[in-house]
C-alpha cells in the first residue's frame, strides 16, 4: 500500500505499525498533527493504545518513563520549546535505559519565538545519551520509527531514540509513502519484553536509585556509553534486516555520489534532498560534487563520516542551526572526525536555514562555489 501523506502522518503510522501501547502527549506546532492523527485513529477504533495529554512536555516525558519502566511500548512526539522543556528528563530517560521512541519535529528555538524549522531544538540533545536519527523524507520517517524500536529495544542497546523530521517542510508536506504490512512489522519488531525495567509485585524492582559512589556512577555511565556505541552495529544490522524485509535501504549515513567527488556537501534532514537535486545539477555541468547525509547523529559514526570525506578536497558542512559564539553545531564534529582520521580536506562551515529560512538548489551550488574558493576553512552565513 502506498499513499500521499504528511511527515506527521508518517510518524503516526510508524507508531501505529509498531503497535505502541502508551502515548503520553502535549500539543506543539508543528508536531501536533502527529498526536491528532493518533487521537482520531483511537477515537475511531482503528488503533488501540492509551493516549493521554499531560499538562506539559516535562510531564509527557516523565509519563513516558513511567509507562516504559512498567514494561509497555511507549511513543511520544514533540518540537522545539517542548523538547527543550524536557531536557532534564531526557537524561533521566536514557540513564534509566528505557528504550522508547520519540518523534521530534524540528522548529527553531525562542527567543525570539518562531514557528519555522531549524535544527537547534533537535541538536540540543547531543549529550543526552539518546539515539538520534534524522530523516530526510516521509518514507524515512515512517521506516525509521519502526527501525528505532528494534534498535532501541535490542539488549545490546536499551536506550531511547529520537527520530527527527524538519517542521513544515516535511511535517506538513504530503509525499508518496509506502506502508509496510502490519504482519511484517510485527515480525520485524516482536513484542517488547524487558528484562531489566518493569514493575511486578512478585519481582519488585527499584528503578532510579541514587548512586552516590563515584565508582558505581562511572560504571553506569560506561555501560550507557557502550550501549550507545553498540547501536552503531545494531543499527547496521537493523538496516540490513529492514532491507531484506521491506526492500528499502538505509544506513548510518547516506553517501550520494561521493566516490569521486572533489567537493562534498554535508547535510542532515530534509534539506538533503534539495541538496541532492543540486548535486545532480552540478554533476550535469561536469562538477565532481557529492553529498554526505548524516542520518544517525548519536551514536556518532565518526569513522564512517571521515572515511566518506577523506578523499575530497573541499567539504561544505551546512548547519541549519547555530551555537552563538561557536558556529554550526555539527561542523566541529565533522572536523574532529576528519582530524581523528588524519584526513585534510578544507572544511567550510555554512550556517543557513535558521528559523525556516529556505534552502534552494541555488544555495547549495553557491555553497560549493564558495567552499571551492575557501583556502582556510571559514564560516559563512547563507540566505
Amino acid at each position, binding site marked *: 500500500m502506498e499513499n500521499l501523506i504528511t511527515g506527521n502522518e508518517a510518524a503516526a503510522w510508524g507508531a501505529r505499525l509498531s503497535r505502541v501501547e*502508551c502515548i503520553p502527549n502535549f500539543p506543539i506546532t508543528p508536531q501536533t498533527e502527529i498526536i491528532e492523527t493518533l487521537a482520531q485513529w483511537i477515537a475511531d477504533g482503528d488503533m488501540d493504545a492509551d493516549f493521554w495529554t499531560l499538562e506539559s512536555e516535562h510531564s509527557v516525558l516523565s509519563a513516558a518513563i513511567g*509507562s516504559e519502566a*512498567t514494561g509497555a511500548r511507549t511513543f511520544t512526539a514533540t518540537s522545539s520549546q517542548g523538547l527543550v522543556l524536557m531536557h532534564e528528563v531526557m537524561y533521566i530517560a536514557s540513564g534509566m535505559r528505557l528504550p522508547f521512541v520519540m518523534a521530534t519535529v524540528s522548529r527553531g528555538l525562542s527567543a525570539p519565538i518562531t514557528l519555522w524549522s531549524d535544527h537547534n531544538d533537535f541538536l540540543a540533545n547531543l549529550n543526552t545519551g539518546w539515539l538520534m536519527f534524522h530523516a530526510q523524507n516521509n518514507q524515512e520517517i515512517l521506516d525509521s520509527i519502526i527501525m528505532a524500536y528494534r534498535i532501541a529495544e535490542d539488549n545490546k542497546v536499551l536506550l531511547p531514540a529520537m527520530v527527527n523530521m524538519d517542521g513544515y517542510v516535511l511535517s506538513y508536506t504530503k509525499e508518496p509513502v509506502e506502508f509496510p504490512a502490519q504482519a511484517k512489522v510485527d515480525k520485524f519488531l516482536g513484542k517488547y519484553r524487558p528484562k531489566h525495567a518493569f*514493575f511486578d509485585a512478585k519481582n519488585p524492582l527499584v528503578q532510579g536509585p541514587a548512586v552516590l559512589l563515584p565508582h558505581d556512577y562511572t560504571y553506569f555511565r560506561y555501560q550507557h556509553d557502550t550501549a550507545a556505541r553498540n547501536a552503531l552495529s545494531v543499527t547496521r544490522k537493523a538496516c540490513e534486516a529492514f532491507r531484506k524485509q521491506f526492500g528499502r535501504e538505509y544506513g548510518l549515513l547516506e553517501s550520494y555520489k561521493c566516490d569521486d567527488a572533489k567537493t562534498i556537501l554535508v547535510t542532515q534532514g530534509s534539506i538533503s534532498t534539495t541538496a541532492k537535486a543540486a548535486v545532480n545539477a552540478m554533476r550535469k555541468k561536469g562538477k565532481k560534487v557529492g553529498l554526505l547525509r548524516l542520518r544517525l547523529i548519536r551514536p556518532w559514526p565518526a569513522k564512517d563520516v571521515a572515511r566518506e570525506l577523506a578523499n575530497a578536497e573541499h567539504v561544505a558542512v551546512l548547519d541549519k542551526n547555530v551555537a552563538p559564539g561557536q558556529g554550526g553545531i555539527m561542523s566541529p564534529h565533522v572536523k574532529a572526525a576528519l582530524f581523528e582520521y588524519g584526513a585534510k580536506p578544507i572544511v567550510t562551515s555554512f550556517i543557513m536555514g535558521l528559523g525556516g529560512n529556505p534552502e534552494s538548489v541555488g544555495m547549495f551550488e553557491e555553497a560549493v562555489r564558495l567552499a571551492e574558493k575557501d583556502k582556510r576553512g571559514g564560516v559563512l552565513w547563507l540566505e
Partner: protein
Amino acid sequence: MSELQTIADIPKENLLSGGTAACPGCGSITGLKMALLIMGKDTVVVNSSGCMTLLCNYPRTPLRVPWIHNAIENAPSTASGIIRAAKRLGKKLNVLCYCGDGATYDIGLQALSAAIARNEDFVYICYNNGSFGNTGDQWSTATPLFANTTTTPVGRKSRGNTLSRKDMAKIIGAHGCYSATASLAYPLDYLRKVKKAKEIKGPAYIELLAHCPTDWHFDSGQGMKISRLAVQTGVWPLYEVVDGVLYLQSDKTRPVEDFLKTQGRFKHLTKRETAAIQAEVDKEWDMYKTGEYWKTDEY
C-alpha cells in the same frame, strides 16, 4: 483488611526495612513505613527527589515493594505512565506517590494538579516537613510563618519567614477529589485515610505532617509529641474534604505556643509574633466553626 479500629487491625508485614540514611526519629520515613502496611505488596512507590530518595542508595534499598524515583517535580506524571501501562499490561498494581512538601506545594504542584484533573487512579501522600529538607532546610511554601530556615533566616533585620503556608489540602480539595490531612501522632486516623484513599477509584490526596528533628530542631525522640501538639493547638487541623465539602475532625484545645516552643526553628519568636501566629490559627478555625469556608462536621 478489617476496619482499623485498633493497632491490632493493622497488617503486620513491614515492607520497609531499617538501615537507611534517614535521620534518627525522622517522621517522613515513619509515614512511608506506616502507609506501606496498608498499601500492601502490590504497590509501586513513586518518589520525588527529597530525603526519601536517599533510602535507595545503590546498591542497597530498604524496600520490599517496587519503587521508582524519576525527578523532583514529576512523580504524578511518572505515576500516570505506570497506571496506564499497568492497565494495558493487565498488571494489578496500586500506585503510591510519596513526595515531600517542596515537591508537592512547589516544584511538582502542576504535575499533581494535572494528574488529579485527569482522574488518575493513585494515592498521593505529601510528607510535609515544612521545608526543602534534603538540601538542608530551605523555605518552601509549606514553611510556617516566622520559621527560621536557611533561606528565610533570622537576622538583625529579619524575623524568619514572612509568608503564610499555602493551604494545600484545601487547594487539592477544591479540585473535587478526596483530600485529607493527617498526623503521625494519630496513626489510626492516618491509616484509615490511607485505606480510604487506596480504595477510591481515582486520585486521593493525603497530607501528612512529618516531624523533622533536623530542620525543626528538636530531640529525635520528641517527634510524636510535637505532631500531637500540632493537632491539639490547631496548627494542623485534621480534616477530610470529600466532594468539595470539608469535614473537620480535630479540635483546638491548646495555645499555639505549646507547639512553637518545642522547636528551635521558632525559638526567636517574640510574644507578639506568637500572638500573630495564634491569630492566624484562630482566624482559620473561626472559618471552620462558623462554616464560612466549607461545611464542617465534628470528628
